[in-house]
């Protein structure tokens, strides 16, 4: 009940924010109508892959294995936490991020240093194919961790921090942190990467009207807790 309520409140917020954070000008920019239609899919399962031709699928798989893998690892399983894991990440989220890198609207330091260049020449169709490619890859299950950190992180993820007006993360990132549509999968992600992103939201280096306010009152300790919990999730 509670969850439905927060969805109802947050959904329009997300919709406007995602629209606001969308690409400003680009040749193949979808119309606002198309974007709005895409947004209604947020709560649904991944969109069908029918539009993606076999040639595009092959091109995406090749690009992923021969270039993206040099940082993001084979099959989207990166080793260093400088590089986020992409296996199982939501297709729509990947597409949105690649476009944000290409359009230089995702501005946190490592986004600029690494991904602005990588995404600069990607076309909309290959971006879409890359999104689907990574979504269908199976994330490797992490070793289970059981610690006070994890328990505290789980509490934050599932219930939020009412005293600080922080909503439960699972309302948007879903119960197993598996993500949906434009809400990224967080399960199994490198904890250090998650903390870096939370800090970037907090200090405004990564602009996002939904996540920025949520992170304002977060302490470093709370970031560590929730990130440790998230990395431990399969």
């Amino acid at each position, binding site marked *: 009940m509670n969850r439905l309520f927060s969805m109802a409140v947050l959904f329009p917020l997300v919709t406007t924010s995602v629209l606001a954070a969308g690409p400003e000008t680009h040749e193949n920019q979808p119309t606002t109508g198309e974007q709005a239609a895409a947004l209604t899919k947020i709560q649904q399962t991944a969109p069908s892959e029918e539009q993606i031709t076999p040639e595009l699928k092959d091109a995406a798989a090749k690009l992923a294995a021969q270039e993206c*893998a*040099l940082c993001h690892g*084979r099959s989207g399983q990166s080793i260093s*936490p400088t590089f986020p894991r992409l296996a199982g990440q939501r297709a729509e989220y990947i597409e949105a991020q690649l476009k944000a890198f290409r359009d230089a609207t995702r501005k946190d330091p490592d986004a600029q240093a690494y991904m602005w260049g*990588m995404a600069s020449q990607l076309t909309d169709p290959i971006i879409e194919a890359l999104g689907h490619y990574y979504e269908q890859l199976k994330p490797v299950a992490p070793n289970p961790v059981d610690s006070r950190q994890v328990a505290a992180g789980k509490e934050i993820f599932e219930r939020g921090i009412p005293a600080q007006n922080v909503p439960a993360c699972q309302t948007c990132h879903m119960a197993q942190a598996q993500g949906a549509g434009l809400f990224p999968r967080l399960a199994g992600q490198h904890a*250090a990467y998650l903390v870096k992103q939370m800090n970037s939201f907090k200090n405004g280096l990564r602009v996002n009207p939904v996540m920025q306010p949520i992170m304002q009152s977060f302490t470093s300790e709370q970031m560590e807790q929730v990130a440790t919990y998230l990395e431990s999730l399969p």
Partner: protein
Amino acid sequence: MKSTLQIISKAGQYIWLAVMAMVLLWSNSADAVPSFARQTGMACAACHTVFPELTPFGRQFKLNGYVISNLKTIKDITLNKEDILELNAMPPISFMFQTSVTSTNKALPDANIPGHLAQDGTFEFPQQASIFFAGAISPKIGAFVQATYSSASGTFGFDNTDLRFADNLSNENRDFVYGITLNNNPTVQDVWNSTPAWGFPFEGPDAAPTPAAATRIDGSLAQNVGGASAYLWWNNALYAEAGVYRTSPQGFQNGTTGGNGPIDSSAVDPMNGVAPYWRLAYQAQWDRHSLEVGTFGLYEEVFPTHLNPAPLVQVGANGPTDNFTDVAADAQYQFIGDEHIFTVLTSYIHEDQDLHGSVNSAIINGLTPPNSHDTLETFKITGNYYYHRKYGLSLGYVNTWGTTDTALYAPAPVTGSNNGSPDSDYFIAQATYVPWLNTKFVLQYTAYNKFNGASSNYDGSGRSASDNNTLYFLGWFNF
């Protein structure tokens, strides 16, 4: 008139370079970086901890033939949809400028520099200035070509060069790259900084005495050979390479004709046939750490003319040879965090010198060589620490030791050895400041414990090892 114009144009060049350096120092954009960065659209930090040290991605970029490109390309295809042209819209050209001040603990004796007075404190502007062509040529071929003007030699010529073909056959189940490199310095093609060509110290004075003894693979062959090798890079873990080198000297004057360039085997130090080179390395990566352990080596047969005083008494390119076998082990550890970067580089090079060529013809320095067989060992270890890729501290130690050989290491002021021993050992301490990722300032101090065999009166002319202790300041600009 002409000379005035030349002076003006030369001064103009320097002013231009100085202005460029200033602009870089104070400009507000960090995108003024060399051609690999322009080609990939990535900051230097993607490939380097602090240049020239490579990150794991930097190693991948090199092994993939320098071809990863995110630039607009000019294309052409045939009617069969075969790609026949894919040219980067921007030529991958960049520049490097190094200026330095070098001061030794005790000035060199005036007599050591005929016709000049020894000035303690050498200011070189530039020490080196280079032009690079560094980037993709076609989708599977790329190059790193450096042409350098060096103040010490007063010449402009080819510096480190690595041309490569690479093919990436990775897919969801394996990572696999193979390639071929053509280069002019054994280990210049290597991707770990524990090997000589790109090892520590990454920069150093050319206006201070350095120990006389060095193994062949440790810089002696740089730019005087040409080589080809083939390599495999499997699973981001195993690297194997094998190839050959052949003498290919630069800036050599032909002794017979007086013209430019060697004829046939008239080069200094010509090799008999080719010198095989090999390299094997294993890399493990976990979290933010990477560890490499490896081995490399070279076998070379040289017609011994190298230490001959003029006029050259040549054995002839079909006489007996001196044979050098270099076998080395190396290791590198890196931790690359967002704030802290820590690296350790180490190598041990063992050289076996079979000097029967020199012994048979009694030609080393005009002296009869006492030994037909020498060994030479070098051990190096360095730790580098960087904070935010901006401030760095390095500490290195180098120890070289080997067989005493009074012909190879003969007494001479400053450069010689009184007791014929090649033993030297020294520390290098360095502070690095990187205000912009493409600009680096280095303050370096080299402290000799032993130089050419001894700590005091090592040269037979009363010079102490510590007289050669060197303070060196370098400004390094890449754009």
